């Protein structure tokens, strides 16, 4: 069932066991799992069926530190959440991403990759993926990795009919849970805002917040303040260890054979370091995206020249009345070191239309990450030179220690951390089952529970974790 307003929902007399906040990939997946288990679940979606400026305005906020995207641009607030602008890249976090790195504090998860692997079959169906393929080492230091360009499932489009037909799932649109109330053991209700006004309190036996990698922290910080710590009793890490995947053009390459590496439909190939190389150099994980432009013959020679002498290449391109660029560009995205100082705060001066303080995001890239960027490109370049597969040129600003450019990709729009998973309550918010420490009926879905980010896009791992949480909750509720 899908209701366009909270008023319409109330008239249906539906009695949910579980209340999920947010209808993005995590919320929708958990709802479908619970619904399939016969558990009545309501999904409260703050936005409507379509994008609107009015809804999006609730996401405005500010960033302190490094340059970052506007917070009302980097995510979407309507049915299906940020899957509506997802590019579709899919890969599960590597096995080693779950393991602690001795050289990077606060790394390591309380679960291993083996804990989510049983759900990858479901993930394939949900995200419409081909089979995952193993990494291919090209040296002791570098491996070719598969990053799947999927059809980029829009969760609302794909599942709207199924949700509308369901008798166990109710999706309620235009209904914003502004805060949760709690007594330090249980969430006792959610305060709602609908149709531009307060809409009373909503109760259910269980609550799952799936409002996104920024908004989960905001909701819980505000809820905790309003209930004097009654929603997240151990809040030292709440909003902290926030992470992104910084992404920049790192240089270019001349390849000896442009058919050497397997590329996808966009002529892109992806490379990451081996665990041994990360350990030896004490760097974080990273992904190098090599984009080939397959020019033939003389055009290729000129394109290669564009890597080294852009002015000369431009002149030659003009003579050919062509616009040729270097035949292989390198983009680097990397894993951020989880730092408590990268965090989400509630604004002291600015609130949204419902009176909830907006986000103030504090985000800076660390020296360890800068070293990861430089050493990562060196590793890749050394591998290509040693194997004679090509030559790499590292961008000047990286080699010279210059500032990060502000006119490039910047990051992946991947919002991770803030309510991270762990066993130490001073450094985490949820346990290995995504249950908030100390609370009996509050769970969190989505990438805000990530302890580390790995180098790959998060949606595949988000969906796998959501399947796992859906199964876990089904078992808890069945007892």
């Amino acid at each position, binding site marked *: 069932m899908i209701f366009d307003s909270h008023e319409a929902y109330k008239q249906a007399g539906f009695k949910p066991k579980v209340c999920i906040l947010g209808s993005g990939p995590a919320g929708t997946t958990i709802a479908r799992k619970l619904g399939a288990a016969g558990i009545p679940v309501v999904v409260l979606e703050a936005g409507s069926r379509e994008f609107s400026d009015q809804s999006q305005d609730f996401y405005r906020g500010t960033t302190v530190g490094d340059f970052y995207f506007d917070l009302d641009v980097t995510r979407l607030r309507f049915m299906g959440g940020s899957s509506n602008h997802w590019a579709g890249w899919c890969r599960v976090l590597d096995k080693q991403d779950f393991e602690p790195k001795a050289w990077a504090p606060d790394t390591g998860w309380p679960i291993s990759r083996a804990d989510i692997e049983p759900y990858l079959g479901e993930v394939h169906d949900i995200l419409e993926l081909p089979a995952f393929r193993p990494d291919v080492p090209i*040296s002791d230091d570098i491996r070719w990795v598969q990053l799947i360009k999927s059809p980029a499932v829009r969760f609302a489009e794909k599942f709207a009919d199924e949700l509308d037909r369901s008798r166990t799932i109710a999706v309620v649109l235009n209904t914003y849970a502004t805060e949760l109330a709690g007594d330090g053991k249980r969430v006792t209700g959610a305060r709602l805002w609908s149709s531009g006004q307060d809409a009373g309190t909503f109760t259910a036996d269980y609550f799952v917040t799936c409002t996104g990698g920024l908004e989960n922290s905001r909701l819980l910080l505000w809820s905790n303040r309003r209930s004097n710590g009654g929603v997240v009793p151990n809040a030292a890490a709440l909003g902290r260890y926030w992470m992104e995947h910084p992404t920049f053009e790192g*240089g270019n390459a*001349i*390849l*000896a*054979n442009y058919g*050497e590496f397997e590329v996808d439909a966009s002529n892109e190939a992806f490379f990451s370091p081996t665990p041994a190389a990360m350990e030896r150099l004490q760097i974080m994980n990273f992904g190098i995206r090599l984009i080939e432009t397959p020019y033939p013959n003389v055009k290729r*020679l000129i394109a*290669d*020249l564009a*890597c*080294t*002498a*852009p*002015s*000369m290449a*431009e*002149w030659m391109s003009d003579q050919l009345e062509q616009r040729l660029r270097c035949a292989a560009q390198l983009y680097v995205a990397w894993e951020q070191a989880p730092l408590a100082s990268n965090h989400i705060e509630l604004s002291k001066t600015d609130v949204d239309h419902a009176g909830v303080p907006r986000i103030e995001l504090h985000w800076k890239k660390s020296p360890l990450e800068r070293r990861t960027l430089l050493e990562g490109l*060196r590793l890749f*370049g*050394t591998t*290509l*030179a*040693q*194997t*004679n*597969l*090509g*030559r*790499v*040129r*590292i*961008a*000047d600003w990286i*080699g010279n220690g210059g500032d990060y450019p502000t006119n490039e990709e910047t990051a992946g729009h991947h919002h991770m951390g803030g309510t991270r998973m762990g066993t130490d309550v001073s450094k985490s918010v949820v346990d290995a089952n995504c249950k908030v420490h100390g609370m009996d009926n509050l769970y969190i879905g989505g990438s805000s529970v990530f302890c580390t980010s790995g180098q790959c896009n998060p949606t595949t791992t988000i969906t796998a974790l959501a399947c796992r949480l859906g199964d876990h909750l089904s078992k808890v509720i069945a007892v």
Partner: protein
Amino acid sequence: MKKMSRRAIVQALLALPAMSLLRSRPAVANSDEIAPDEIAPGAIARDEIIEVNGWILRRSDLA
């Protein structure tokens, strides 16, 4: 013709030997697989990996 900077000319001159090398030699999957009798005297020193003007090269690229 546009005036080229000295830097661009130097960059091109630096890179041309590498480009020539890439086009005239078959790719070697693993440098360890090169048979000992194929290694000329001094080749090990020449194939040291070096960084020049941002390029990661074999020293022999500059020979």
